[in-house]
């Protein structure tokens, strides 16, 4: 006794036994899998279905009440099962590449028999190198492709292999095992259990790979460890696994149908194995399979081959072999250009991401809690993280030949990114406001134990923390930081001429803030140690800031007043690299723009102070020497100004005052130069008089001599000349 159901098959109603219906469904599914890589797949299946339907009708007309198992088996035998096609059809898969098939007959039928490496022309994306390798070693081509993309030399290796490895359109990848996500044993996305069944291990083993670094990441992020953030290891092994998991989740297809589940477990797909497996999940199989079929199409084919085809046809007409070479060269060139652009984009995005992640631990020192923190997270995740994940996903999906037309997904992706962009702009704005104002400047004097030394050597006080500078990532002025203290190297040294005959050291603390009062408070909170120890001046190289007071570009300017004739040396351990300065639009107040100061000394060189300024021991003015050595320093020719008007820049409370002082000084300078010119003139006149007097004396002497030796007449001729000289 068998249950008979009515199905609507290709437009006609067919009474069919339930078991036969199941056989029919499995048969068609196996056909779909077999023709999955065919171009006219749906059409072929449709044609076969209508043929089956016709045969059904014939059976029914002949007097059968319903279609039985026997009937379907006869029909299947006539049409043929995929297993039969495999024997029947070996080289017909691609008629369009017929010109190659003549030489293909010498190739082995299956790669297993005499193993040779071929490029797989049937399952190719670019040149079939990866799927050829996959068929050769017997793994999922997706894995080979991902490895090629990840490894840096992959690109060149690929091109070489493309050129040297012969192509074959007869390769069948013997492995039917593919990587899927396993929805049956999933905890989050089924990624790990899918990997488990691919590698035939307990799903908890891949899970452990993802979890252990992640747990340790939480520990480290918390309060264990004197680890310096950020270091690259903590990026790649902790939140990194989360990113990897999400990417795999997006990239690996979920095994929803029975055949996919079988593929996942690596059983050979044919009618029998499908029959063996669970049947009750057959609902909606058709949709799912056709969807999978759509996904199998490749963008590379569509875009690359449109271009390639034109050339291909033209070239084939002229001559086959040379044509192929031309096509290959064209393709390689096109892919090379595309690849370069894509690579540049990815590298740019990645570096932004790395910088952002590197910067992120500094968040505590810059951002206030609440809104700014939320905005920071928002822009990190949506503005930077999302495109990185998106691009990686895009590439891998292309490699795995998965194509989805999920518009909602794309739009929500874009919407989230725009949200991230808004967060980012808002964050910049908000942070910018916190840096808007600059503190007032007042100079304090540091007590020196012995201000009358001959030489002052400025040395850096070493911090324990600060000794650690080997992080891979540095951002000036942040020198180093840990959980609650950051050291910023915003310390500058200026050298001035001392008005007295002893050394003097001044200290100016500065900071930015949202209001001037706020900035003043922050500036007064700056702790800075500086003291004299015999002939050396010990000074902090960096200022410590904590998460409570935040980083508001706090800084210290140390002004060392050197008396004339004494020596000064600022040691190299105080030098700051000129790489990158945190200098933003908030420094609008040019009056206090102490960031722009340029120094006219070099670190580690001893100088002597003279009346006209700093000189090296060789007698070269410091600024000239610097100019010779540092082509970058452009603004230091105003050294003289600095020594004169250095003070006014900090004393002036209002712009007007200072402007007036500038005028005064300028007038004074002009006066001075006029004075010196006058003096010069006077000197010259004096000199001329001297020389004239000497000449006169000489002449008188000669006249005397002549008088003694020769006649009176001669003397008379000389006299007018003499008077002439006197009148000049």
């Amino acid at each position, binding site marked *: 006794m068998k249950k008979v159901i009515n199905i609507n098959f290709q437009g006609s109603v067919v009474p069919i036994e339930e078991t036969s219906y199941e056989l029919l469904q499995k048969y068609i599914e196996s056909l779909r899998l077999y023709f999955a890589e*065919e171009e006219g797949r749906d*059409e072929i299946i449709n044609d076969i279905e209508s043929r089956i339907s016709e045969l059904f009708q014939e059976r029914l007309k002949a007097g059968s009440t319903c279609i039985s198992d026997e009937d379907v088996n006869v029909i299947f035998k*006539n049409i043929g099962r995929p297993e039969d096609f495999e024997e029947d059809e070996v080289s017909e898969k691609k008629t369009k590449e017929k010109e190659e098939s003549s030489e293909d007959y010498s190739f082995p039928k299956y790669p297993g028999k005499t193993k040779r490496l071929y490029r797989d022309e049937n399952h190719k994306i670019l040149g079939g190198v990866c799927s050829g390798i996959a068929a050769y070693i017997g793994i999922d081509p997706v894995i080979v492709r991902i490895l090629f993309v990840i490894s840096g030399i992959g690109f060149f290796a690929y091109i070489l292999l493309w050129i040297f490895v012969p192509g074959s359109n007869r390769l069948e990848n013997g492995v039917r095992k593919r990587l899927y996500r396993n929805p049956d044993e999933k905890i989050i996305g089924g990624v790990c259990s899918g990997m488990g069944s691919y590698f035939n291990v307990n799903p908890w083993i891949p899970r452990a790979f993802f979890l252990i670094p992640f747990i340790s990441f939480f520990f480290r992020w918390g309060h264990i460890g004197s680890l310096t953030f950020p270091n690259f290891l903590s990026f790649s092994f902790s939140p990194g696994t989360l990113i990897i998991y999400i990417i795999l989740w997006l990239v690996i297809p979920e095994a929803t149908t029975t055949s996919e589940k079988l593929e996942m477990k690596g059983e050979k797909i044919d009618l029998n194995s499908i029959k063996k497996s669970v049947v009750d999940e057959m609902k909606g199989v058709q949709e799912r399979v056709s969807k999978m079929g759509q996904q199998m199409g490749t963008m590379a084919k569509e875009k690359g081959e449109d271009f390639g085809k034109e050339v291909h046809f033209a070239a084939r007409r002229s001559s086959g072999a040379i044509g192929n070479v031309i096509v290959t060269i064209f393709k390689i060139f096109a892919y090379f250009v595309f690849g370069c652009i894509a690579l540049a984009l990815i590298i740019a995005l990645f570096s932004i991401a790395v910088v952002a992640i590197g910067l992120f631990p500094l968040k505590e020192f810059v951002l206030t809690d609440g809104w700014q923190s939320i905005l920071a997270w928002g822009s990190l995740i949506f503005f930077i993280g999302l495109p990185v994940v998106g691009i990686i996903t895009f590439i891998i999906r292309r490699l795995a030949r998965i194509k989805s037309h999920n518009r909602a997904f794309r739009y929500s992706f874009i919407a989230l990114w725009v949200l991230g962009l808004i967060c980012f702009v808002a964050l910049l704005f908000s942070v910018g406001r916190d840096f808007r104002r600059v503190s007032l400047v007042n100079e304090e004097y540091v007590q020196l134990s012995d201000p009358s030394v001959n030489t002052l050597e400025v040395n850096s006080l070493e911090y324990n923390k600060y000794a650690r500078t080997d992080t891979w990532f540095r951002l000036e002025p942040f020198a180093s930081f840990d959980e609650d203290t950051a050291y910023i190297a915003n310390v500058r040294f200026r050298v001035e001429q001392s008005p007295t005959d002893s050394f003097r050291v001044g200290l100016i603390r500065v900071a930015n803030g949202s209001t001037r009062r706020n900035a003043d408070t922050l500036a007064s909170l700056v702790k800075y140690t500086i003291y004299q120890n015999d002939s050396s001046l010990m000074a902090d190289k960096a200022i410590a800031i904590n998460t409570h007071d935040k980083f508001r570009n706090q800084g210290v300017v140390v002004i060392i007043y050197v008396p004339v004739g004494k020596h000064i040396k600022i040691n190299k351990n105080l030098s700051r690299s000129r790489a990158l300065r945190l200098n933003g639009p908030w420094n609008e107040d040019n009056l206090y723009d102490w960031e722009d100061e340029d120094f006219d000394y070099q670190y580690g060189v001893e100088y002597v102070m003279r009346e006209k300024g700093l000189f090296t021991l060789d007698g070269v003015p410091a600024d000239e020497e610097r100019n010779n050595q540092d082509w970058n320093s452009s603004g230091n020719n105003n050294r003289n100004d600095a020594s004169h008007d250095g003070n006014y820049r900090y004393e002036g409370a209002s712009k007007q005052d200072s402007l007036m002082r500038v005028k005064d000084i300028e007038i004074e300078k002009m006066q001075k130069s006029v004075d010196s010119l006058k003096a010069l003139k006077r000197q010259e006149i004096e000199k001329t008089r001297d020389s004239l007097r000497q000449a006169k004396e000489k002449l008188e002497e000669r006249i005397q001599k002549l008088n003694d030796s020769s006649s009176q007449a001669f003397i008379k001729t000389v006299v007018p000349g003499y008077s002439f000289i006197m009148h000049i």
Partner: protein
Amino acid sequence: MNIDNTASQMRKGVLEFCILSIIKLGEAYPSDIIDKMKSANLHILEGTLYPLLTRLKNAEFLTYRWVESSSGPPRKYFSLTPKGANFYHELESTWLELANAVEAITGKTENQ
């Protein structure tokens, strides 16, 4: 060397040529093609024929027209396009050359 393999490959080489020559005679329904080939003792599965026809059609060598059928869904009747006719003639000349060559070679060896 597997005799079946070699034989089936030989057969396959001329499969398209045979199909095209059947269609050339007039519009053909796939199962008619099968029958004709069967009567000539050239066996082919429908599951092999359909993909082949689709490929030839996609290459614009064939075209088809829907014909209402009393038994079941409408049928696709295939016919040759001008491009397909050219293709057929090329194949034909190749085949004749090949047949002559094979004839000449095998005939000679048999004579010896």
